[in-house]
């Protein structure tokens, strides 16, 4: 059996360690002085300050609503069909006539619409498949939750107030 030798012979410089420590200290000092004297930072004070992300960033989903706060989704299941993670679960039913969003008779609505964000891979295929521009991915990347149940976004959560693609 052929073996691959991965051990390495160390040079004297490497064996003494000191030169490597000095190189490291030099970088640390440079950053410290840059920050201390010139006020130049590579980090931000996160919860108070937030980074700007591209408008195309794919974060937490939402469902767009019309002016009557009725969801634009017609429960066509195309997002559920295309989703590679199989994390969208829709139950559809007939839409009541008085709940018609556009004054036009629209037959179908989702009675429940759940996205399991723990399974979602944020590919954005659902957004692309949707014929109604209903499901979208916002630029919100703060997805931390304190329980698994909260990670399943239901219809009420998805219909939350949005301003463009970012939360109001």
């Amino acid at each position, binding site marked *: 059996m052929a073996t691959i030798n991965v051990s390495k012979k160390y040079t004297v410089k490497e064996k003494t360690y000191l030169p490597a420590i000095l190189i490291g200290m030099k970088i640390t000092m440079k950053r410290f002085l840059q920050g201390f004297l010139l006020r130049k930072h590579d980090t931000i004070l996160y919860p108070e300050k937030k980074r700007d992300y591209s408008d195309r960033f794919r974060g937490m989903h939402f469902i767009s609503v019309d002016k009557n706060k009725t969801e634009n989704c*017609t*429960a*066509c*299941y*195309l997002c559920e*069909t295309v989703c590679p993670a199989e994390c969208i679960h829709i139950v*559809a*039913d*007939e839409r009541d006539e008085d709940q018609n969003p556009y004054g036009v*008779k*629209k*037959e*179908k609505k989702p009675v429940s619409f759940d996205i399991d964000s723990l399974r979602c891979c944020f590919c954005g295929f659902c957004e692309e498949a949707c*014929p*109604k521009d209903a499901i979208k991915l916002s630029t919100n990347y703060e997805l931390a939750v304190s329980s698994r149940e909260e990670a399943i976004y239901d219809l009420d959560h998805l219909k939350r107030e949005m301003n463009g693609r970012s939360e109001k």
Partner: protein
Amino acid sequence: MSNTTEFEIKKPKVDLNYASEKKPVASDPSPEAKPLPKVTIDGKTYEFKPGDTIMQVAERYKVHEEIPRYCYHPGMPIAGTCRMCTVEVEKAPKLMTSCSTPAADGMVVHTRSDKVLKSRTGVMEFLLTNHPLDCPVCDKAGECELQDYNYEYGPGTSNFKEEKRVFEEATTKKLSDQVTLNMNRCVHCERCVRFTDDVTKTNDLVMVNRGWHKELEATTEAGLTNDYQGCLTDFCPVGALTWNDFRFKKRSWFLSKKPSICDRCSKGCNIEVHSDAEVVYRYVPIHNEMVNGHWMCDSGRSSYNDLMNPMRVISPLMNHQNGLHSTTLQALLGELSIQLKNASSVQLVIGTDATREEAALLKDKFPSILGKNVSVSYFNGTAGVTSSADDKKMDNLLKMKDLTPNTKGVEEQGISPLSQGEVSSDIVIVFRNGRAGIPKMKAGQKVILWGVWNHDEIKTLSSQTVLGVIAGLATIEKEGSFKNTDGIVQKFHPAIVHKGGALSAHQVVNMWKSLN
């Protein structure tokens, strides 16, 4: 059994047009017959029977792609109104509708020439001028002939810039409790009108007005009244007619489709079970000329609801301190064995919805397991039906009086019917699959239930003592065969996998045997 025809239920390859009793040419072996005339379709020559139309010849041989059609349906008279099926016939000045042009000896037909394709594109564009294209909310999407043909032949764009026609009233109009009409989607093929005129002969539907305003209406206030309304929703090529029970429940592309047999009456219509994750969403008929043609009745179509009923017993239940409690089959059978051994007499009543195999097993093998004499009889339970001799047609199409699927098959095992008040033994075992009736029993009668039961049925037995319930598989969950009212034996295989704790009769009998 000499005149018995036996075959397996499967999706037929050639789904044919035999409103006209014609049989496929391939199965016509008479050697002294005159040489059959020949027609050339797309460069190949086929024999046909005089009287066939071009469409029928092409269908029979299924040798090339399907000729697109809207108005033509194999089970109905020919109308020739949609112009989708046009083909080029050499020496004919214009395109001909293949559904209504009889084939002639020496005819040369092209089904995909440039001229034909151009015509189909034109027809598609016209059909789509007023079509709402609301596929996302349309239940037909995924199995829609308008989608399919438009994908294949459609122009992709439209010259129609005007506002589309909308039937305000008939956007969602309930034609009956079972069927909803969306007139905006209709392509005016009139299959539905011809179906009620010529197949059910109930004349429920009619087209009123003309052209732009042509609209489907029910002829009476009551709307649709026939017993085969589900078929309208099967063959409507678009989502204009939809089946309320299925409406919005599932998109068609999620469904897995397996053939089985309907057990709602003694006709035994061939069906396809559409399910997803072993939950049944609908039954649709599959073509079998010898049994059901293209159709099935509405009560059969809805009968999957009984099996998907949350009240169905799907695990063994044992009587303990006057209540039925879930248990293991081993424990239940052990307990029942003791009770049956101590019983002075034991009687077995087999419902006529048992398969032939189950009936044979229960009659021949089961008594020997108990090691005692068991009197075996069958029970039908449909009002007015005791044996297969009482069965009769309820209409001109499919429905039979006997509401169980296998009365003939059970009789064939040499079992005789239970006469009224004959349940007299110490313990009676009632085996049924949810379709046969429950025999009348005296108060306090000890009874063991076996097969497909639901809790509501068990509640009706409150004055009897139910010792235990052995949960069994329903027709679509198991393998077996039925002999229908016409003496045709039909085999079937499981269409869905049972996810509960019910077992087949063979498994139960084997376990019972191993316990003793």
